[in-house]
């Protein structure tokens, strides 16, 4: 059905192969707090292949957002290595896109200019990227709203602007930090479908943070489960459901099997609130 069938085939689960697009190895992160050092992450390993969709699932406070900050290069790890597209991550990496839990748009800029924010921030030519931005707005079904302002859009629409903004500079990797957590259940399901479509039609890898088990299974090639603090990956589960996934996927016995397995993992965790 899709022109790029190999994008849907997950890389062999885990396994730190040299071809990994994003490789996180033995990463540790310690925050200095007023009550002494706080070990947020310790011994964390995770790989994301080219065009792969990987979810990180974990209870709140386990260090998921911290992990994303490390990948953007905004926060240096206390120990361990992170490489992206063959180069070590040291300092800000402009080739990653970020989508937050809240849309976090500039309320004084219209939708088109909000999508162009990463271009403007780079000091690159906004004009040269206009067509790209409009194309992405079409992809997120907001081409009719290019001149609208964020306060004129619904929460789901604003979040779609945020996704288009994350992709406008053709990032090698898109980081999404619980992007649907603030949306109502109905919008959430639509957005899951749309994200799958967006991912299938763009050549980007996605590292997707969530604490919703069905969301993770529905969207991902692999689900990495993080344990409570200090965060590390306790298990990686390959999702071998065919794509594109749809309504019937959630009724698939394999889907139920996978979500049940993941649930049982969280049951065993101490102080888990996922």
């Amino acid at each position, binding site marked *: 059905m899709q022109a790029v069938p190999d994008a849907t085939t997950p890389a062999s689960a885990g396994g730190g192969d040299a071809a990994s697009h994003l490789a996180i190895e033995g990463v540790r992160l310690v925050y200095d707090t007023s009550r002494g050092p706080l070990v947020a992450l310790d011994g964390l390993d995770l790989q994301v292949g080219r065009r792969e969709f990987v979810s990180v699932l974990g209870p709140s406070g386990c260090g998921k957002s911290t992990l994303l*900050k490390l990948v*953007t*290069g*905004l926060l240096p790890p206390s120990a361990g290595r992170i490489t992206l597209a063959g180069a070590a991550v040291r300092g*800000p*990496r*402009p080739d*990653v896109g*970020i989508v*937050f839990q*809240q849309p*976090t748009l*500039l*309320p*004084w800029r219209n939708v088109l200019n909000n999508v162009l*924010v*990463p271009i*403007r*921030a*780079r*000091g690159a030519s906004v004009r040269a990227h206009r067509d790209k931005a409009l194309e992405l707005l079409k992809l997120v079904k907001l081409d009719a709203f290019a001149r609208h*302002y*964020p*306060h004129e859009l619904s929460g789901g629409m604003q979040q779609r602007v945020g996704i288009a903004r994350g992709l406008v*500079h053709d990032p090698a990797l898109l980081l999404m930090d619980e992007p649907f957590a603030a949306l109502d259940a109905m919008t959430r399901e639509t957005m899951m479908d749309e994200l799958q479509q967006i991912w299938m039609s763009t050549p980007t890898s996605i590292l997707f943070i969530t604490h919703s088990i069905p969301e993770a299974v529905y969207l991902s090639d692999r689900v990495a489960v993080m344990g409570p603090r200090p965060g590390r990956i306790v298990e990686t589960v390959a999702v071998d459901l065919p794509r594109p996934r749809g309504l019937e996927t959630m009724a698939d016995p394999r889907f139920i099997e996978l979500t049940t397995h993941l649930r049982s993992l969280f049951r065993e965790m101490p102080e888990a609130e996922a």
Partner: protein
Amino acid sequence: MAEGLKLAAASLTTFVALILAWEGAILLFDLPAYVLPRPGAIAEALSRGWIGGFLWPHAWFTLQGAMIGFAFGAVAGIIAGMIVAEIRVASLAIYPIVIAIQSMPTVAVAPLIIVYFGVGLPSKIVTVALLCFFPVFVNTVAGLRAADPRLIDLYRAASASRLRMFLDVKFPGAIDHIMSSLQIALVLAFVGCVVSEFIASTAGLGHIIKSFANDLNVSVMFAAILSLAAMGAITGFAVTLAHRRIVFWRAR
């Protein structure tokens, strides 16, 4: 629209009732005109002052003192706020000075300002500027510091310059705070100007109020007070309107 009409009708009713109660109280308690003049006498003083024209130069004097001082104070407050919010070292240097100045009640310093700047307009402008500076300064700092850290991260990830971050994210985000502080500063501007006129002045509505108090001419005092209220209301409305226009994205 209907709501607005209802509000207007209610306000008018209150106003008329107040005037009637006023007249009634004067008749009932037989109050002399030097304590509480009849509304008619105030209306007469107002028309003498405004149509006859003798209040004109005084209103203009006060308006100039308040507005020019307001402009200086607000601009200085915004600039100092930007420096303090953006430059760490400068913030350490400027903050103690600002706090020291702020701890002195400006009204107490006003006579000193007259000694240095004379009884004319300059002393009014300086007093007003000093009063207006602080709220604008504090709100500019708060507004700039309230920038969404995720947006800042987005710009940092793109290795954006600090200037770009400031122009794109921080300053536009602070405008709402700044506009609110202008509202406060405006009220202080008229207070500051009138206080300075009370102390010593060649003109101004505050000067009128004070001089006519000496001859117990209460109706002219009321006329000056009402003129001040009208000037405050009109300029306040202008600032509110500008606030809504500029910060169009805030639902109100």
